[in-house]
């Protein structure tokens, strides 16, 4: 309440412009102040169906809060993320948004991550009948299994998935395209499709020793952390994370939180060039992580199959390894956070859907792919961004799909 009163209710507020889903932030904050918490949550959901997880995982420091006008007047910005979490915790109800009359149109969505959930939820509110196909046992995508638990717990995400389901979305888990059902059959079954397939498995390093136990992909490791109660890291003294993105930092912060005594991070360029957010990295460095900049892994050393160390070398200004030896970092766990592969083989099963050279799905501003009945959004089109970007894509696609279906109704 106190913090909500600090917001000056800007007209033309810059925070709205810097939110990928354009949440009317000053309005939801004002409603917190008047005790209209349901209205506050409604304002959030109207713009962003995954407003709850976004309140937890959004990098507000570089999005909405970074553009708060108070930054220009030597006052701390409004804690928008915290206020959004408050509004969603105390004002949320599953019946806040109005639902249109049923249209009878069925839409298939491939992948159960944030982009598909947002798209499906929006379609359901517009009266359509969306069906999500998720190959995993859990719906939610990276929100369920990929976001470090210190930000978003699995249970909280599943609550949000239940909300989307309650809007009239059918979710089929354990269904893999091309194995359990063919892409062509999906196109035949549904009036339109949305591809929210995300990215593939963690990339690996082609160096000696990289194959085998004790070397794990960061996304896969976080997934186990959140879903596998048998995961144990007892006895890990030295963990080395390879990479400089936010997934690397997530993994690192979890390892510190789990009590691994020595955690180091190896990045092939300088700290300034990292794609990981400084506001996430700095606290980790304060917690004692050692950062090795401008270094690449030359070899992972093993004894009797167990990892014992990481041999690193200096890199050149392009991030390429040189001959300059930097020695051995002791290690008994190596976490690879050097990106995720693309699901090109999956996407290629859908006729007409094009890919960029980097393997991203090609879409126009309305999220239409090369096939006018197929839409796409999220990491699959942008190569890996924030949850809020995926939500935006999904919602834009839903409105495009709605437009297409209504045109066909009248056509």
């Amino acid at each position, binding site marked *: 309440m*106190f913090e909500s*009163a*600090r917001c*000056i*209710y*800007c*007209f*033309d*507020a*810059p925070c709205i*412009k810097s939110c990928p889903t354009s949440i009317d932030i000053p309005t939801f904050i004002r409603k917190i*102040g008047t005790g209209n918490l349901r209205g506050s949550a409604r304002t959030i959901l109207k713009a962003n169906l995954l407003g709850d997880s976004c309140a937890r995982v959004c990098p507000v420091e570089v999005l909405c809060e970074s553009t708060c*006008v*108070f930054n*220009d*007047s030597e006052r701390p910005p409004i804690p928008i993320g915290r206020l959004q979490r408050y509004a969603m915790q105390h004002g949320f109800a599953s019946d806040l948004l109005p639902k249109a009359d049923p249209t009878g149109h069925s839409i298939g969505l491939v992948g159960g991550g944030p982009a598909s959930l947002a798209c499906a939820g929006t379609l359901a509110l517009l009266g359509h009948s969306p069906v999500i196909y998720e190959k995993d046992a859990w719906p939610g995508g990276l929100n369920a299994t990929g976001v470090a638990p210190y930000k978003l717990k699995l249970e909280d995400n599943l609550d949000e998935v239940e909300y989307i389901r309650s809007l009239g979305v059918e979710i089929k888990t354990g269904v893999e395209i091309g194995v359990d059902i063919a892409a062509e059959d999906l196109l035949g079954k549904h009036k339109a499709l949305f591809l929210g397939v995300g990215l593939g498995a963690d990339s690996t390093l082609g160096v000696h020793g990289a194959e085998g136990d004790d070397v794990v992909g960061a996304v896969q490791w976080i997934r186990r952390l959140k879903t596998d109660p048998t995961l144990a890291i007892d006895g890990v003294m030295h963990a080395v994370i390879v990479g400089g993105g936010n997934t690397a930092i997530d993994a690192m912060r979890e390892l510190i939180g789990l009590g691994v005594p020595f955690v180091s991070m190896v990045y092939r360029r300088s700290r300034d060039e990292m794609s990981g957010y400084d506001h996430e990295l700095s606290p980790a460095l304060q917690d004692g992580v050692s950062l090795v900049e401008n270094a690449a892994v030359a070899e992972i050393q093993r004894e009797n199959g167990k990892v014992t160390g990481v041999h690193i070398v200096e890199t050149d200004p392009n991030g390429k390894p040189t001959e300059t030896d930097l020695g051995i970092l002791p290690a008994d766990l190596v976490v690879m956070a050097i990106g995720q592969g693309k699901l090109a083989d999956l996407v290629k099963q859908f006729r007409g859907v094009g890919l960029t050279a980097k393997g991203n799905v090609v879409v126009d501003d309305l999220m239409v792919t090369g096939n006018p009945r197929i839409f796409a959004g999220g990491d699959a089109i942008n190569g890996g961004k924030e949850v809020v970007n995926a939500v935006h894509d999904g919602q834009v696609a839903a409105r495009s799909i709605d437009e297409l279906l209504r045109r066909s109704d009248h056509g």
Partner: protein
Amino acid sequence: MADLAVDFAGIRSPNPFWLASAPPTNSGDQVMRAFDAGWGGAVWKTLGNPIVNVSGRLGSIDHGAQRMMGLNNIELITDRPLDVNFKEITEVKKRYPNHAVIVSLMVESRDEWIDIIKRSEDTGADGLELNFGCPHGMCERGMGSAVGQEPDVLEELVKWVMDAANIPVIAKLTPNISDVRDPAMAAVRAKADAVSLVNTFQSLIGVDLDRLTPLPRVDAASSHGGYCGPAIKPIALRMVGQLGREEAFTLPISGIGGISNWRDAAEFIALGAGTVQVCTAVMHYGYRIVDDMIEGLNDYLDEKGMAGVSDLVGAAVPAFKEWGDLDLNFHVVAEIDAEKCIGCDLCHVACHDGAHQCIHLPDTQDQGIRVPWVDEPECVGCNLCALVCPVVDCITMVEKRRAPEPETWNDRVAAGRGQIPGGLADLK
């Protein structure tokens, strides 16, 4: 160092800061702690025949993050026995001979007034304040504002008191009246030594929307109360100023109403108050706030080259005029400092929806901040933009006179130019 000591209608006080008759002056212990903190005087919580109070006595409104911008109470006069009060007043006066102790009184019959005045004087108190202002509870019994709202009754009662009293008498006025000059002039006719104003405004602080009972809740109901605190300051200030500029009104004024700091106090003094009384701010923050009041007023007087409080008393009264005497040729326009602007654009929306549509946003697709611009010929100089702007000194109202010579509305009427085109006479 300016001289803060005052002589108010014969009551001497080391400074003009008094505690108003209210919970902060309920007991000797409190008043002595207040004097230790620096307060120059205290008007004791009103004495009269014993009452019982309800539980659930106060309610307030907040403004944004600011708590208790307005406070409402339904507490009555003292609920402690008279002999205890008199004993404590005597003790306080003995220990603090140089501080002002004023006893607030409220009884019904003439005999009761005479009796309680004598007993009050026996304590060594410096003055009496007659509570003709309390607008809740006591007025239902024919006392408090029931007296203050009837100038003839007030005059009669003050005469009884003046006949009996040997120490200065202050009549405390209610603001719950159409023209405060009526009871004030009654006090002049009855030869009171001074007046104090304002007492609280009749108010209903709110409604509990779950129980559908007014606030403050006394079980399943409430009653109207008396409203005070920063929210009432402008209304009280105007009433004090109204008496300050009234030629026929000659008595000293003790100003009361939302005074929370030295600035508020200085404003009341500039409009004619000789002392000021404080309650809500002390109920909010404690006696310690007087430290800032003393320093602040002292430094202000020094800065203005004033030797003492009396130099400031009424200094702003000549400039407090009727609307018809204001200069119509004075003109200001808004100027926005683009360097300071943070782009909240509140001035734009306020001007467009709530004023005269002269502040516009540049038409740009740029994602950066949009600094609004003023269409100067359209600006009427209303000040709204400068008031809503959250940045200090970002919007200034720049003086651009319409003509060098002043001309008031009354001048225009006198010159036969009181008819403005577009009125009823011009309709076909």
